[in-house]
């Protein structure tokens, strides 16, 4: 196949040719000359003073080149890990931002906190030596739970952070909300927990640092979703390496889900150690190490209330959330439960006033940061559980109460009371189509059939909206971002007419090499095969903010679209010269430049060739070459949304919840590659269901040990947990992105947890259950059923 593959078609993914053959190049595959192996010794205690660390025995082990501690890095003036987005609390004070040394000194604050770094010829030698390090810990009481951490006598993580409170943040008009509540006909309220998750991308974190004496340049190979941002954060703020002396490469990366969009201590440590030793140093996380080296997600405790009038119309919402930061602030930690959470609390509904208060709390746990959806699944869960609760209490059908309160299609653009303005959407259209596909009408028959077998069956619903395409820099700046969030693309047309795209986003499973090639093929009329997408290397790609927040197509694709337009303009100039016509008369269509109304034309390839052979170019007005670059900064977020239905069956004997049907209708805007979009939705939905039914990061409340520290105890969803998902798009066009795209990477994860829990609660309706916390695991559900049945049995 050597043809134009345009927007809306589903070619096989370019990148799969190497992936399915095992020919990808991941950080762990890279071997540098003279490379050494590094191993971290990590704290076995959740909270302890580091009285002393004796590395002498470890240093004497065979093959050991160095053993570094936090004191060594401190003595070398290595900085703490920076936070990329600061928040301001409700009193106008900046958040508490305690230092986060790459290797702990003075104190360790969670199980897994790095204590020392051992470098040896081989990994086995480094592991053996790490066991010889003698650490004198003075164990302190630990606190892992949010409510516990705020109690007056709770163990304190930092001397200068009273009550472990990082920030007490708010959004919205509390007096308007209070007034609405006073006049409400009904108030629904709920207390809920959003369970801690551990991302577990298939490829664990890995990093190689290297220093080249001749050029004075450092290179870091790392499993990152945003190599340019790592270069900025690590170079400027941690190691003091000038930007032009640091190259960061993120090659093939095996899944990210947000877990790889932070600057990690390990990146700084290997780079620093490589400089000290003059040899490359590699670290690859062990699978079980990943449970404590990777930032975790979610972990909220929330109380929320919804005020309604007598017709079930929403009047106001009040939300109070405690959000776990873990022991240190990760790169975007404080931003996730605040700016990416509270602005989504309006959901797809008209709610005149909303007030949200978020307390960000330090605990003796792994730092918490963005994980697929990042703040928006948490917001959706609160809104949708609250709406279900209101429907139940007021005796209104839960689909009907949503329809009564949805923002009608014609009301867009819609300004919410919590900052954001939705540009486009059709929540009712999504809901009606989803209702049809899910055969809601036939549900009661299926419920009765389940009941005849002694099983509880439930139908759940979730409607959602999210803010994607991070982010308009101006707005982000107002909200505390410490950098812009635009994206860049260069379209380099070679003399043959083949194209290399250099783009600042990062492909780690999303199919960018295919989707972006389709955009270029469509725009320039260049065969799909003749287009390469390059990303992930700060020495090749001009700049970029990376991939997260469903932004790659929305922001990166927009930059690519703009750069392609510039190439067309330049091509028209060259064609005007070649065809001896005026620029205005040159039209570009289907890969051909022609003079309007004539048969005089040049192919894209001919013009590309001419661009590099400028014998007769009027050089004062026409430069040689055909390469254009664009930076795109969005004017607004995009707002994908949708309506999901889940149907579950519960076995009361064992409490096991079986997902029987799942239906999703989503508005993701213009679709470039339907197959890839469907894959993203599948993955996202399954990941969200993982949170609702299976996954749970659990700490021992006393010792602070991570109890779910391996796949033996942390339940990842598997293929046999799922029925075939029914997925259909129902798109409206984004009004402000060049191609009308909205993004689709996080939709499923945002929509699905609430749908599942809604279904579980519906199944348990005969027992009078109003809410079930996640995950709805068998023991948890069996306890609920048993407790609900006990009083009945006693009668």
């Amino acid at each position, binding site marked *: 196949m050597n043809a134009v593959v345009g927007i809306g078609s589903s070619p096989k993914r370019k990148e799969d040719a190497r992936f399915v053959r095992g020919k990808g190049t991941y950080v762990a595959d890279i071997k540098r000359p003279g490379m050494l192996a590094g191993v971290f010794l990590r704290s076995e205690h959740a909270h302890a003073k580091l009285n002393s660390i004796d590395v002498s025995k470890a240093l004497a082990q065979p093959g050991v080149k160095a053993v570094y501690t936090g004191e060594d890095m401190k003595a070398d003036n290595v900085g703490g890990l920076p936070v990329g987005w600061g928040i301001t609390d409700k009193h106008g004070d900046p958040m508490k931002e305690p230092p986060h040394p790459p290797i702990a000194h003075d104190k360790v604050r969670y199980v897994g906190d790095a204590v020392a770094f051992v470098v040896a010829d081989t990994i086995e030698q480094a592991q053996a030596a790490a066991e010889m390090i003698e650490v004198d810990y003075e164990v302190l009481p630990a606190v892992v739970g949010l409510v516990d951490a705020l109690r007056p006598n709770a163990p304190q993580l930092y001397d200068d952070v009273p009550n472990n409170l990082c920030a007490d943040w708010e959004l919205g008009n509390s007096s308007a909300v209070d007034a609405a509540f006073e006049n409400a006909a009904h108030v629904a309220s709920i207390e809920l927990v959003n369970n801690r998750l551990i991302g577990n991308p298939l490829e664990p974190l890995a990093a190689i640092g290297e220093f080249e004496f001749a050029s004075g340049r450092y290179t870091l190979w790392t499993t990152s979703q945003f190599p340019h941002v790592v270069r900025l954060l690590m170079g400027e703020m941690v190691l003091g390496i000038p930007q032009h002396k640091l190259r960061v490469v993120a090659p093939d990366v095996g899944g990210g889900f947000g877990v790889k969009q932070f600057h990690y201590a390990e990146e700084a440590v290997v780079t620093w150690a490589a400089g000290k030793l003059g040899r490359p140093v590699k670290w690859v996380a062990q699978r079980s190490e990943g449970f404590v080296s990777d930032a975790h997600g979610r972990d909220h405790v929330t109380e929320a209330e919804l005020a309604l009038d007598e017709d079930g119309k929403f009047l106001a919402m009040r939300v109070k959330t405690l959000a776990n930061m873990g022991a240190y602030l990760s790169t975007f930690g404080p931003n996730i439960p605040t700016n990416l959470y509270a602005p989504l609390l309006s959901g797809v509904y008209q709610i005149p006033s909303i007030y949200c208060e978020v307390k960000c709390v330090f605990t003796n746990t792994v730092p918490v940061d963005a994980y697929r959806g990042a703040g928006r699944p948490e917001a959706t869960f609160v809104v949708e559980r609250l709406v279900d609760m209101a429907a139940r209490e007021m005796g209104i059908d839960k689909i009907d109460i949503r329809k009564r309160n949805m923002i009608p299609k014609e009301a867009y653009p819609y300004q919410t009371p919590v900052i954001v303005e939705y540009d486009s959407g059709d929540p009712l259209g999504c809901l009606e189509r989803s209702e049809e596909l899910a055969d809601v009408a036939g549900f009661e028959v299926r419920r009765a059939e389940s009941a005849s077998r002694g099983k509880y069956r439930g139908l759940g619903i979730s409607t959602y909206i999210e803010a994607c395409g991070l982010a308009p820099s101006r707005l982000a700046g107002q909200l505390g971002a410490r950098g812009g969030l635009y994206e860049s693309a260069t379209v380099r047309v070679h003399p043959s007419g083949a194209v290399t795209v250099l783009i600042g986003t990062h492909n780690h499973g999303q199919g960018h090499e295919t989707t972006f090639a389709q955009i270029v093929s469509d725009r320039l009329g260049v065969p799909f095969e003749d287009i390469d997408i390059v990303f992930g290397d700060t020495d090749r790609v001009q700049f970029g903010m990376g991939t997260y927040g469903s932004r790659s197509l929305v922001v990166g694709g927009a930059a690519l679209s703009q750069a392609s337009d510039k190439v067309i303009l330049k091509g028209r100039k060259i064609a005007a010269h070649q065809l001896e016509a005026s620029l205005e008369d040159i039209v570009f269509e289907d890969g051909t430049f022609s003079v309007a109304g004539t048969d005089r034309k040049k192919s894209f390839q001919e013009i590309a060739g001419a661009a590099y052979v400028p014998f007769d170019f009027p050089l004062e007005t026409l430069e040689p070459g055909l390469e254009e670059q664009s930076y795109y900064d969005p004017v607004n977020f995009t707002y994908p949304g949708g309506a999901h239905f889940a149907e579950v069956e519960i076995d009361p004997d064992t409490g096991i919840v079986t997902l029987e049907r799942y239906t999703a209708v989503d508005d993701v805007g213009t679709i470039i590659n339907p197959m890839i979009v469907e894959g993203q939705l599948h993955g996202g939905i399954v990941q969200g269901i993982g949170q609702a039914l299976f996954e749970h990061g659990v700490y021992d409340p006393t010792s602070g040990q991570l109890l779910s520290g391996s796949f033996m105890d942390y339940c990842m969803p598997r293929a046999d947990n799922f029925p075939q998902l029914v997925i259909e798009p129902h798109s409206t066009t984004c009004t402000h992105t060049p191609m009308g795209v909205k993004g689709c990477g996080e939709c499923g994860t945002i929509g699905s947890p609430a749908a599942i829990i809604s279904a579980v609660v519906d199944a348990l309706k005969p027992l009078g259950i109003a809410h079930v916390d996640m995950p709805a*695991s*068998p023991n948890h559900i069996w306890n609920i059923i048993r407790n609900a049945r006990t009083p009945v049995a006693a009668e």
Partner: protein
Amino acid sequence: MRSFNYHKPDTLDAALALLSGNDEALPIAGGMTLLPTMKQRLAAPEDLVDLSGLPGLADVAMEGDILVIGAMTRHADVAASPLVKEKLPALANLASRIGDQQVRHRGTIGGSISNNDPAADYPAAVLALNAEIVTSKRTIAADDFFVAMFETALEPGELVTAIRFPLPEVAAYMKFANPASRYALAGVFVAKTTSAVRVAVTGAGPSVFRASDIEAALAESFDATALERISIDASELMSDIHADNEYRANLVMVMARRAVALAQQSG
């Protein structure tokens, strides 16, 4: 993983000689527990004695009325064996549901029972079926073999060579899998012979055990309804983040009822 010396003897005597008197030596069958333990550096044998080269340890055959399964028979081979499927279908069914594909093609019956993981499936079958464990030294009754969590009657250097299963009239195994590890949270093997009913429970306690109240009830009436008024004492059972002991006690009864129902169907 630490470095070790790898041995692959081709006779049982040679294997025993390598293990004898060497505290730093460990035998490896399928390695489904030992290898992960070594990777975590929790076990660090200096000598690893691979039993997969020993002849005649992976045979499945009838000896009179006894089904004899060689200790090195892989789970997948037990599951697929026409002889096991015909003579003791409950055991073939159990083997087909151990772990995952990879585990079933590496793990062995001898390795599983020698390890005596409290949540392993085979110990329940061996105990409920009143099997005999043939070792390099002697024959041990199942009731005497499983001592405690990860502990058996095997002496250092003693190797299981075969398991001898008397055939029941009917038998069945039901388990409720841990959603994360897929090990049994509770697995119940029910076996009825002409003279007795034996019921063994795995996953729920610190080691596989016989449930005497369930056995007594079923001896009177081998029917799931006979178990409706029986419960099992939760205080002896394990609690963890997946299942508290009350829940495990419930699962034991649910699995026992389902196993009896299945045994009746297949019988």
